[in-house]
């Protein structure tokens, strides 16, 4: 389709081949498979669809998924900002090693993360054995889900904030200091407004990742219906029972709800903070 190419003296060949292959591969691997969700839902009656989606177990799983992901995203916003700040602004031994380790949750297979965190926080685990006598039960509770989701989302905020922090104009902070602002005032009035959009973007990414997360959660969650069952697990259970219609209905609502939420966060919240900062 060279007709779509704007002519600005581009002499490079291969647009048709590269574009054709890209579209064919995208269609075969991603778009056609995803469209089966719509096809399958279209074959259900409205009553069937509504019964699955309004089932208390489904509603509870969706609420748990959204709340646990939100909690993990907020924890990551605070600690991710702190970690990014410390990595960019202060010196300490083995800093390069620590900086590289931040990407571990991206690289570690989710099943490994799941069994590790469960072993770590279970009643006789490394940390769990100190927490449980104090009445804090992490493994096999919703709190465990938040811990697992915090783990998988950790790199997003750090890696989004770090480059912004690195490129901050030092003169603005200098001007604030010369004009008599305390360090805390400078941070709140000068630095924070500049890094807040990146922090929100990072935690939005962490939130989106957490919503769909399966492997690292199912080991630590305990998976009790109406208590610690997340939406991806409920879809999995429906599939294992060959209830494809039910699984598809939940998947469709869940996908649409997450896209809508991400769209709102991106377009409303980010634009507002960007406007304030600018």
């Amino acid at each position, binding site marked *: 389709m060279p007709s779509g190419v704007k002519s600005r003296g581009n002499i490079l060949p291969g647009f048709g081949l590269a574009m054709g292959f890209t579209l064919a591969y995208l269609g075969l691997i991603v778009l056609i498979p995803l469209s089966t969700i719509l096809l399958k839902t279209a074959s259900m009656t409205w009553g069937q669809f509504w019964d699955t989606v309004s089932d208390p177990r489904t509603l509870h799983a969706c609420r748990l998924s959204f709340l646990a992901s939100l909690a993990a995203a907020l924890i990551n916003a605070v600690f991710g900002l702190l970690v990014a700040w410390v990595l960019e602004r202060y010196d300490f031994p083995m800093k390069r090693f620590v900086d590289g380790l931040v990407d571990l949750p991206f690289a570690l297979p989710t099943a490994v993360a799941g069994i590790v965190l469960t072993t*770590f926080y279970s009643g006789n685990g490394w940390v769990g054995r100190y927490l449980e006598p104090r009445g804090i039960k992490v493994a096999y509770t919703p709190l465990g889900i938040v811990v697992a989701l915090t783990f998988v989302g950790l790199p997003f905020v750090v890696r989004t904030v770090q480059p912004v922090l690195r490129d901050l104009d030092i003169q603005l902070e200098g001007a604030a200091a010369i004009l008599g602002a305390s360090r805390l005032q400078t941070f709140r009035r000068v630095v924070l407004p500049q890094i807040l959009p990146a922090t929100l973007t990072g935690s939005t990414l962490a939130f989106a990742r957490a919503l769909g997360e399966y492997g690292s959660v199912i080991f630590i969650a305990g998976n009790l219906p109406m208590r610690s069952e997340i939406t991806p697990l409920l879809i999995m259970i429906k599939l294992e029972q060959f209830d494809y219609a039910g699984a598809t209905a939940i998947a469709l609502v869940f996908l649409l709800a997450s896209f809508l939420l991400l769209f709102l966060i991106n377009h409303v919240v980010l634009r507002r903070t960007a406007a304030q900062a600018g």
Partner: protein
Amino acid sequence: MDATRPRYLTEPAAVRWLLTFVALAFLLLFLFLPLVVVFAEAFRNGIGAYAAALADPIALSAIRLTLVTAAIVVPANAVFGVAASWAIAKFDFRGKNLLTTLIDLPFSVSPVIAGMVFVLLFGAHGLVGPYLLERDIRVIFALPGIVLATTFVTFPLVARELIPLMQSQGNDEEEAALTLGANGWQTFFRISLPKIKWGLLYGIVLCAARSMGEFGAVSVVSGHVRGVTNTLPLHVEILYNEYQFSAAFAVASLLTLMALLTLVVKGLMEWRSGRRANA
């Protein structure tokens, strides 16, 4: 960095130490100790038990299936990544943003839903599944399904590395080669490919690591037939659920080493590009 900052532009020493301490304590508790757990648990029953867990025939067949899957998925996604970045970075066309968004789409789909769509398509009651089963072609609960689900999940990885890289490099060298009479493929293999080789390599490493570690999507389409359709992460799950903890962690330690390797490669890449930027 810090050393160049005048004192009025940084925090009092006590605040710096406190913030550093809290950040490091958080990372220690959330990242480093869990990493230590893998190896401590894997070697809890001694190195003999560790070796036995890995030499188990079912573990070996899981390793084989995982490697075969990666050997199909990684080249396919790498070729796609190069083609997509060539089209997006080197040309202007309408709908470029839409295409980029669609390429990123698999990242925002839950792995379970990624597996589910292939069951809806190729399952026994799926759209084309019955037709294929009549002809004795099994996709779900077999290698093709595992490959498809893994390809979906790792789809954007190489393209995402290459698009910004190619965009930042520009077309000058390619245009010079073409003007001097090289044909399209010569230009691609002699000029463009060497320009992007490090980014491509990193994308391939990422894609390989993700495809060997994928759990949710593969779990949906694999059918969990022991020794036949179990990949390494699924084998970890089975061992763990059977309370064979040290065997589960022994297999998990292989996947962890692979994850650490990708971190090392990433570190080397950043060190390289940092050195070039400073030079």
